């Protein structure tokens, strides 16, 4: 089952989960129904509820982190798992029911055309997604700085619905950002290293268990942190993708 060669053509679904007992079972059931052939690994990020047991009870593989590392650490663990077991492709999927498993085909498709990472964007297509004024302003600044740093325009930098090919996985298994807003930083990191990063429109559901931080001073603090870490994203030396035209 864990033979590296066997997994080359398989797809792994990585679900970082921290206290997600309410929504995880339905998310796993949906995945099992929509993409029955894909392996699913839940990274239990030091949950204090029975998230890990639920994951295993619903047929997923569960990696149990001994304490909470934050989303970035959980994802890196997932990427490591994917690389260790030789998966050719992986999908990052939220446990909270926000992502729609029927959209998986859409974010996998560009990988066949040579993309290394594909972002499922809420804003690139149809659907109205409302954000408050301060949040909208902060997101605007973030989008602007990312566009400049990455040299490429993205409409949804914080989307956690993504797909990766094996080369992208190999890089993220060692180099995934662990700071807050890892998703934005990961984008910049990948673009700067010369990976082919694309965005496709996807539809998403409303967050089932809403806990988006909306206290503005906290938002400001977090965005400042992101800007500092983005500004310091290392420019990688020899481009790994440049060697293979």
């Amino acid at each position: 089952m864990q033979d590296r060669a066997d997994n080359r053509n398989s797809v792994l679904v990585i679900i970082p989960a921290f206290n997600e007992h309410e929504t995880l079972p339905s998310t796993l059931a949906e995945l099992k129904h929509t993409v029955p052939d894909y392996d699913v690994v839940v990274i239990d990020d030091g949950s204090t509820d029975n998230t890990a047991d639920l994951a295993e009870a619903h047929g997923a593989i569960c990696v149990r982190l001994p304490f909470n590392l934050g989303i970035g650490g959980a994802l890196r663990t997932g990427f490591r798992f994917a690389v260790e077991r030789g998966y050719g492709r992986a999908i990052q999927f939220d446990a909270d029911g926000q992502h729609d498993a029927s959209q998986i085909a859409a974010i996998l498709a560009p990988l066949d055309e040579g993309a290394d990472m594909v972002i499922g964007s809420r804003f690139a297509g149809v659907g109205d997604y409302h954000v408050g004024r301060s949040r909208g302003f902060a997101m605007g600044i973030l989008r602007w700085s990312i566009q400049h740093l990455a040299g490429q325009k993205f409409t949804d930098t914080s989307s956690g619905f993504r797909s990766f090919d094996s080369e992208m996985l190999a890089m993220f298994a060692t180099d995934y950002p662990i700071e807050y807003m890892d998703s934005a930083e990961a984008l910049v990191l990948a673009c700067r290293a010369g990976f082919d990063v694309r965005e496709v429109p996807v539809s998403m559901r409303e967050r089932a268990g809403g806990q988006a931080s909306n206290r503005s001073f906290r938002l400001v603090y977090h965005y400042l942190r992101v800007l500092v870490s983005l500004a310091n994203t290392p420019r990688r030396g020899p481009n790994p993708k440049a060697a293979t035209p």
Partner: protein
Amino acid sequence: MSLRAHITLAFLVALAIIGIVVLVRRRHLKAKYSLLWLSLGAVMVVIAAVPGLLDWTAERLGIWYQPTLLILLGLALLLLIVVHFSYELTRSENRTRELAEQLALLRLRVTELQQKFDSSADDNDRGSDSSAS
């Protein structure tokens, strides 16, 4: 500074240095960290031991109230030490994270191998068992 100030300073610095050496000897403080504190102590020792040095230096630097130089020096060294601690803390946290991630993956591996071992040990009996905790 007055002679009395010099004696007070020398006394305090001596106490601090003795304290740090004791901590290192008891292995409560790594030698690596003690070096920073001892170098702070060394600077203070020189200032306390050489009368007029502080005043002379302050004058050269254009500082009118000479004891300010003492405070400035102390602050600068403290800042260095604190930055060094932030650096060490970051490194230590990165290592902890690394360990946590590897531990989690290894734990899964062990569980899988254990299950494989158990099922091959008595594969004639039960066809497929899933609960093992």
